[in-house]
């Protein structure tokens, strides 16, 4: 069984290698190869899963040690895998959703001459992401961590000829690097504290280290998570990342990669448990992002950017939960999985819409599409219901539990974060309803595209619709299944160390559930009032200051631009000047000085014998004087 773990990664990695080095001869078949390997990896995942179910809870984790990677003194980094329930959850999510999206892309990228390369990148992403979740030490995790970063860089910038895409890709990578800085420092801290950075020993002995150390490590891990999961203050790249092809947005920037931060925090639970301050920080970040993303989501007219904002906010939920400690971990992961289903579904739906609308992304130019693309409408609709937490759909369970857990924190913190979560639920309902209405309802606001023809919306091919259907099914059922007898909680219990049943303080669960539903209804109603009753203007109205700011991602980019980009340019330019004038100037200056000195001293050599004689005479005098003086002293 252990050997299969390696194959999980190997299959897509092989695909990437073959597709990227294979050359043009693979253009015809390449995408099927990529898809096939993705499904193969998924199959391995299932095998391992069934095997795992066969064992009892405590002994389910698998370990396999491949080879010693970087052994230097105490620094022993191994290439070794650990497949426990948490990893297993991710493996299934990644390979499952990944395979579906491969399938979807076959249709979506049909007309792109660089499709082979696209599938190569997708496979590369799968491999890296799997490595990330099955690594058994932080350094190997780092490899996967950066690997997915690279894949996302390549895929966001897949249409490199568009400067906007290239810029977005670069931005994403660099912002992520800031996060990686955190991860590196965290690993160094672990090494100096524990002498190792393998999950097992570090987490087992976390309590030995002082709280300050743990807080430091925790904060650094949080920084890393912020980068990867687009949490405030490092969220700015996610919106631009929508430059990439829609399947990419669905897979990487909704379902899997962006949730890696949550994985990191949950995986490092033992560290955070020992560092309450770090946990508070996590919760704050989560809460802020939750609202931030939601607000941005309300203002966007670009359907994908709107979904991106929503993603941000949903991950905010997960991070918030992950900050709550053991009680939150399980629900964070649960929401992560359900979110994986419905958000991926929503994105694929959006992609399908764009596919039919000549790649138009502005929702103000949609409208009344439900008749033209029924499958898309239905699947998108189910995803919509799931995300707003419509009772008994998957979003309902996961989000509801999150809110409960937040309140369960108790005291002021509990109230603050709980109500933030509720508020978020309301806003979510609002902007999703807005999206739904603007896209599928109301009258047509279609505009002719650049070459003057009106779009002829049509249903997408099977390769695209099948994955949408499956994901929709998932978003409907997943939550219910997970919640059946709390099996998800028990499944993850060995990792999170939390079994349900005893909340810190008695909560009125039905009340919370009720208020959550109410919030949802309020949001929907408000949206209906604004966008359902009266027609949607084809051009965006000015709107108030908040709207304006929200459209500009709450000015976050502007701040970055002024502070980092401009400032950086000034800094480097002045440094270049300094290097040339000062550092190099000193060197050239010395040479010049010697030259000048020489030029001046030459004048003594005036060609007149008598002056030479004078200097000789003087020299003799000095010589004599010096000798006498030496004797005198």
């Amino acid at each position, binding site marked *: 069984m252990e050997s299969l773990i390696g194959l999980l990664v190997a299959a897509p990695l092989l695909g990437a290698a073959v597709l990227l080095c294979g050359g043009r001869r693979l253009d015809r078949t390449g995408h099927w190869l990529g898809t096939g390997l993705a499904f193969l990896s998924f199959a391995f995942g299932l095998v391992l899963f069934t095997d795992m179910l066969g064992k009892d809870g405590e002994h389910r984790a698998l370990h396999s040690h491949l080879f010693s990677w970087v052994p230097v003194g105490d620094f022993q980094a191994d290439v070794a895998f650990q497949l426990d329930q948490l990893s297993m959850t991710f493996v299934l999510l990644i390979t499952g959703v990944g395979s579906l999206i491969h399938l979807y892309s076959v249709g979506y990228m049909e007309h792109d001459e660089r499709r082979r390369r696209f599938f190569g990148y997708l496979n590369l992403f799968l491999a890296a992401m799997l490595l990330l979740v099955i690594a058994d030490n932080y350094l190997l995790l780092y490899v996967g961590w950066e690997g997915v970063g690279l894949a996302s860089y390549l895929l966001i910038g897949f249409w490199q000829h568009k400067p906007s895409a290239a810029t977005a890709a670069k931005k994403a990578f660099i912002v992520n690097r800031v996060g990686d800085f955190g991860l590196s420092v965290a690993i160094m801290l672990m090494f100096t504290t524990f002498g190792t950075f393998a999950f097992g020993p570090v987490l087992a002995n976390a309590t030995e280290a002082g709280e300050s150390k743990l807080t430091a490590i925790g904060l650094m891990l949080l920084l890393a998570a912020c980068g990867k999961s687009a949490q405030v203050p490092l969220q700015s790249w996610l919106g631009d990342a929508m430059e990439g092809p829609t399947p990419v947005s669905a897979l990487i920037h909704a379902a899997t990669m962006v949730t890696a931060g949550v994985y990191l925090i949950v995986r490092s639970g033992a560290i955070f448990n020992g560092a309450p301050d770090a946990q508070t920080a996590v919760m704050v970040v989560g809460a802020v992002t939750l609202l931030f993303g939601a607000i941005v989501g309300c203002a966007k007219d670009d359907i994908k950017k709107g979904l991106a904002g929503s993603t941000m906010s949903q991950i905010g939920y997960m991070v918030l939960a992950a900050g709550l400690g053991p009680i939150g971990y399980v629900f964070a992961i649960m929401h992560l999985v359900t979110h994986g289903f419905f958000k991926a579904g929503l994105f694929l739906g959006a992609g399908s819409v764009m596919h039919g609308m000549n790649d138009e992304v502005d929702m103000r130019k949609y409208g009344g599409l439900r008749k033209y693309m029924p499958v898309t409408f239905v699947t998108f609709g189910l995803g919509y219901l799931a995300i707003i937490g419509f009772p008994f759909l998957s979003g309902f369970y996961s989000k509801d539990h999150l809110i409960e857990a937040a309140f369960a924190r108790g005291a002021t913190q509990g109230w603050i974060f709980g109500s933030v979560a509720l508020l978020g639920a309301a806003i979510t309902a609002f902007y999703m309803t807005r999206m739904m209405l603007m896209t599928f309802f109301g009258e047509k606001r279609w505009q002719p595209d650049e070459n003057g023809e009106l779009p002829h919306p049509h249903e997408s091919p099977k390769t695209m619709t099948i994955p949408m259907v499956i994901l929709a099914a998932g978003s409907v059922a997943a939550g219910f299944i997970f919640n059946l007898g709390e099996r998800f909680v028990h499944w993850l219990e060995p990792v999170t160390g939390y079994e349900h049943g005893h909340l810190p303080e008695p909560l009125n669960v039905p009340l919370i559930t009720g208020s959550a539903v109410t919030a949802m209804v309020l949001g929907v109603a408000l949206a209906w009032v604004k966008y359902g009753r009266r027609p949607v203007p084809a051009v965006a109205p000015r709107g108030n200051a908040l709207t304006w700011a929200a459209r500009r991602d709450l000015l976050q980019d502007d701040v970055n631009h002024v502070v980092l980009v401009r400032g950086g340019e000034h800094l480097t330019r002045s440094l270049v000047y300094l290097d040339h004038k000062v550092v190099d100037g000193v060197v050239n200056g010395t040479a010049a000085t010697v030259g000048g000195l020489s030029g001046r001293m*030459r*004048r003594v*050599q*005036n*060609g*007149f*014998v*008598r002056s030479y*004689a*004078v200097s000789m*005479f003087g020299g003799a005098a000095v010589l004599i004087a010096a000798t006498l003086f030496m004797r005198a002293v």
Partner: protein
Amino acid sequence: MNPVNYLFLSALLFTIGAAGVLIRRNAIVVFMCVELMLNACNLAFVTFSRMHGNLDGQIIAFFTMVVAAAEVVVGLAIIVTVYRSRHSASVDDASLMKL
């Protein structure tokens, strides 16, 4: 008379000669001044020889004269050729090469 005075005289002569070399322009005169310096040396030699009561100094004086003569031969030859080609014996004119 105290022989030391002769030393003072020779020193004086030597200095005069040196000054001449530094001051005079005409190559011949400069050269004569050098000869004067040599002769000052001779005087010193003889005086010291007298004071030490051995003959080395006096013999050296003879050698010096011979050397001086030889220098005259070479020196005049050079100066004359220069004079021929430049029609001037001023050492300051001979300053093509400088810096």
